[in-house]
C-alpha cells in the first residue's frame, strides 16, 4: 500500500466517522463543528483525486461561507427554539420518521446498486476519451481549463445558475426589507 492509498483510507475514515457523529450527536453546535472536519476530509479526498481547484473551492464556499452562515443562524435563534429541538422524541423508530427512513433506504439501494454494478477500472467513456485524446494530464493547468470550459461549452448552465443566484439574492433582499405597510 503506497502513501497515496494510505492517505485515501485515513481521510475516508475521518470523513465517514465525522459524518456519523454529525448525524448522531444531540449537541447541535458540536455537530456543526464536526461537519467542518467532514468537509475538510472531503477536500483532502479531492486533492488526492487531483482536483485541487475543487478542493480549495470546497473550503472557500462550504467552510468559509455556508458553515459560518449556518453557525450564524444558529447563534441568532433563541434558546427556546434550540431547546425544543433538543427535546425531540427520543425513540429511534417512530411513524414521524417514516419518510426520512424511506428516502434514506431508497438512496442506499441506489448507491449500493451503482457500486456493485460499476466497473470503475475500465469505464467505457473514460477509455473512449483517452483514445480520442480528450483528457487532461495530471500536470495540466486546471484553473484555466475550468475557466475556458465554463465560458464556452458550459456557458448555458453557468448563466442559468447565475440567474438562480440572482433570484435568491433579490428574494433575500425583499424578505429582509422593512415593508412599508406590508
Amino acid at each position: 500500500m503506497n502513501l497515496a492509498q494510505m492517505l485515501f483510507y485515513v481521510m475516508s475514515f475521518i470523513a465517514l466517522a465525522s459524518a456519523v457523529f454529525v448525524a448522531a450527536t444531540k449537541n447541535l453546535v458540536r455537530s456543526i463543528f464536526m461537519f467542518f472536519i467532514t468537509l475538510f476530509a472531503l477536500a483532502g479526498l479531492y486533492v488526492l483525486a487531483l482536483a485541487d481547484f475543487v478542493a480549495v473551492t470546497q473550503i472557500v464556499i462550504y467552510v468559509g461561507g455556508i458553515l459560518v452562515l449556518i453557525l450564524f443562524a444558529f447563534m441568532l435563534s433563541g434558546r427556546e427554539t434550540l431547546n425544543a429541538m433538543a427535546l425531540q422524541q427520543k425513540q429511534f423508530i417512530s411513524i414521524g420518521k417514516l419518510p426520512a427512513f424511506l428516502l434514506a433506504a431508497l438512496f442506499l439501494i441506489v448507491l449500493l446498486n451503482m457500486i456493485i454494478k460499476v466497473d470503475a477500472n475500465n469505464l467505457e467513456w473514460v477509455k473512449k476519451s483517452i483514445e480520442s485524446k480528450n483528457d487532461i494530464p495530471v500536470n495540466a493547468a486546471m484553473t484555466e481549463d475550468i475557466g475556458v470550459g465554463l465560458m464556452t461549452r458550459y456557458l448555458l448552465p453557468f448563466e442559468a445558475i447565475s440567474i438562480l443566484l440572482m433570484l435568491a439574492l433579490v428574494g433575500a433582499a425583499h424578505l429582509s426589507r422593512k415593508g412599508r405597510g406590508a
Partner: protein
Amino acid sequence: MNFYITYFFIAIGLFGFSALFALFGVYAERKISAFIQDRLGPTETGKFGSLQTFADILKMLQKELIIPAAADKLLFMMAPAIIFIAVYLGFAALPWAPGLVPAKLNLGLYYIFAIISIETLGILMAGWGSNNKYSILGAMRSAAQIISYEIPAGFALISVVMIAQTLNLQNIATQQGILSPEKVNFSGFWDVSSIGGIFAWNVFRAPHLLIAFVIYFIASLAESNRAPFDIPEAESELVAGFHTEYTGLRFALVFLAEYSMMFLVSMVGVILFLGAWNTPLPNIGAIQLANWTSGAVWGILWIIAKTLALVGIQMWIRWTLPRFRVDQLMALCWKVLTPLAFACMLISGIWRLWLM
C-alpha cells in the same frame, strides 16, 4: 525520504519565525503606540524595555489554564489552536525570494484566501465555547465583519490576478521585476522590462491597481480584526470580545494568531501589489542597481522590509483612528469598497484585453 525532513525543517522554521515576529511585533506596537500618544512605553525590563515581551511570555506560560464551569470544554480548548493553525497554514504558499517558496502551488493565492476564512470558524468556536455573552457578541461581530470584507478583498485580488493571469504567487512575484519572462509596462505604455525596480511593481502596472491596493489594505485591516475595525474586541463595550475567557498559553496563542495574521495579510499585499521580493531600485543606464540588488538574500531582505513597513502602517493606523460603529463599518464595506472593487475588476478585464 530526504525531502520530508526538509519539509519538517521549513515548517518548524516558519513557526519559529511567526513566534519571533509576534514577540517583536508586540514590542514594536507598544513603542509605536507610546510614541503616538506621547508616552514612553516599556522602559524598565532590559535596555529600552526590549525584554518586556519575553517577560510577558514567561508570565503567561506560568499562568493557570482556566476553563469556565459552563463552557463547552472541547470547543473552548480547540478554538485557539484552530485560529492559529488557520493563519499558520497560510504561510505555506508565500514566496520569500526567487526560487525560495515553501510550497509551489499553482493555486497559491486561492489557497491562502481559503485558509484565512477558516479563522472565522475558530473565532466562532471560541465565542460559543466560552459561554459568555461578551464572547459570543464579539465572535458574531467578527464573523460578520470578516465575511463582509472578504468580498472587496477578493475582488481587489482578482483584479490583480486578471492582469497577472496566474494564481501562482511565485509567478506573480517574478512578473514584477527584471526577472520577468514577459514584457512589463509601466501604466500601460512605458516598457520597463529591463529597467525593473519600483516601476515594474503591480501597483504601477495599471493605475487602477493602486485603488485595488488601497481596497485590499483596508479590507485586510478588517480581516485581521485591527483598529479601526476592532469591534469584535472593543474593550470599552465587550471586555475583550471573543477571547475574554482565555488565560495563559491559550490567550498567548490567540495573540500569536493575531500578529501572524497581520504579517500574512501584509505579505500577501506586498507580493501582489508591491513587487514581492523585487528590489525597488531601478536600472539607470550603466548603474545597474536592480541587477546588483536582486537574488535570494536580497529577496528575503526586500520582502521582509516591505512587509514590516506595511505592518508598521497597520500599527500607525490603529493608534491614530478611532473605532468604527457597526453601521459605519458595513456601510463602508458594501457601499464604498465593494462597488469600487467591482469597478477595478472591470477595468482590469478591459486593460488586459485592449492595453496589454
